[in-house]
């Protein structure tokens, strides 16, 4: 069964959606959308390094993204530039350097579109192991830091006064973000991973009134997006990443109708 590329893509997608749901909630709550984007852009550099040094792609992306996150935290402390400028600086320069390095690697054939937008054909059995094992590990760690992370998302000072350790939780969360980007790059692609984190979560926000519900709905939204996206990718021969994200967008639009309804009900 695992010999069929579509089944592999589907299993990979389910694994990814289970993880992006809860992580995406924190990305939205903590206003980290552009941070996620920056990490994702740097992933291309990770890919090129993986190819030139013959490393595992996911491991290489994870290391580079974590490195970029560390550089960002360092720059935030050392310079007077606003965070969004620093994020832009890192996102575009790492993307540019990545593309320049690809230019030098003439001896390797690159499917650049596949890297940017994901490729349903690219997922092999090894990737499945990385996605499900890595994803499980991410969720486990997230469960472990959930309380301090969530409390400090609501209010940093309250969390600190009550003896939690918000700084450590934040640092660990950053690493988890780098990890989910690393494991989902093949299916969703560099440019659209942040969409996978944010759009199902945004949809969930529209229809939930508690944080727990929001996490559950965003997982469900992610799963539906993966199903619809992959089936249409197969049907219409479109790249997998954009198909999944378009499906997520459709779900988001439907959730807007629900908001309209509740507003009308209130009146």
């Amino acid at each position, binding site marked *: 069964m695992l010999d069929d590329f579509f089944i592999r893509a589907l299993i990979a997608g389910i694994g990814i959606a289970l993880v992006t749901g809860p992580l995406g909630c924190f990305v*939205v*709550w903590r*206003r980290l959308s552009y941070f996620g984007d920056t990490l994702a852009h740097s992933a291309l550099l990770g890919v090129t390094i993986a190819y030139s040094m013959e490393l595992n792609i996911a491991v290489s992306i994870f290391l580079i993204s974590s490195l970029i996150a560390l550089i960002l935290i360092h720059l935030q402390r050392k310079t007077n530039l606003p965070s969004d400028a620093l994020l832009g600086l890192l996102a575009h320069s790492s993307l540019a350097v990545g593309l320049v390095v690809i230019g030098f690697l003439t001896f390797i054939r690159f499917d650049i579109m596949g890297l940017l937008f994901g490729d349903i054909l690219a997922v092999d059995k090894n990737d499945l192991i990385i996605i499900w094992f890595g994803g499980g590990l991410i969720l486990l760690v997230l469960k472990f830091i959930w*309380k301090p992370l*969530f*409390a400090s*998302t*609501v*209010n940093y*000072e*309250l*969390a*600190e*006064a*009550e*003896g*939690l350790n918000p700084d450590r939780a934040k640092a660990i969360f950053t690493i988890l973000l780098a990890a989910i980007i690393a494991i989902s790059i093949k299916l969703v692609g560099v440019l659209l991973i942040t969409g996978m984190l944010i759009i199902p979560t945004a949809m969930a*926000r529209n229809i*939930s*009134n*508690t*944080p727990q*519900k*929001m996490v559950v709905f965003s997982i469900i939204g992610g799963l539906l997006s993966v199903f619809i996206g992959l089936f249409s990718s197969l049907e219409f021969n479109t790249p997998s990443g954009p198909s999944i994200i378009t499906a997520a967008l459709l779900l988001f639009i439907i959730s807007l109708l629900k908001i309209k309804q509740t507003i009308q009900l209130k009146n």
Partner: protein
Amino acid sequence: MSTENNILVKLDNAGYKQDNKWLVEGVSFTVEKGKIVTLIGPNGSGKSTTAKIALGFYKGIEGQVEKFTNKIGYVPQKISIDWTLPLRVNDFMLLTDKLSDDVVDEALKSTGVYHLKNKNLGNLSGGEFQRVLLARAISKKPELLVLDEPVQGVDFTGEIEMYELIKKISANLNCGILLISHDLHTVMSATDYVVCLNGHVCCCGSPTEVAFNKEYKALFGEQASKTLTIYEHKHDHVHTTDGEIKKN
């Protein structure tokens, strides 16, 4: 009266420097069980900084701080909850601790916001939110309560009610309270010890001592000394926060 083991937190000549500028320096006071210590002073005088020193937020402070309890409730000065987070009052009460429903209800009732239990935090008014914050702090039965301007945004009758409540909390829970306020009127009546700050300790002592201190007058003006006679305005009924009228 003040035996050693009643002390909850003790500041000895404490201060904090940021970017080579003293935010506050040379502060000494102790908070004891069942006592209310109030910090007053103009904006930027280091009231919140002093509270944070007492809470142990800063690394590398000058002087000495000794804490004798870890059961601390804190109401920070400014707290904004994002609309991106769908959080109900009940979720907020359970944020860092597992509390039983009874404990949560009791705390919310005592600050008069029980009817808001299932409302979204984003839909509360400033005053309602302030009451929820106080309820949250006392629900943990703390030994030390640090309240940074706990009545901001609360209407005037509510304000007096809240200070009454704070007095009651201190008596019922036998906890020490470190209160920050710029509101001279009500503070003076509900306090055991006042520390008047302006980058350093201007003067300190009982409310009466402070009110007639020269430096206090210089800082707040002659008028301020007269605030000891607090506003007493008798109503024959009380409005509860959910809009009902209760006869006295």
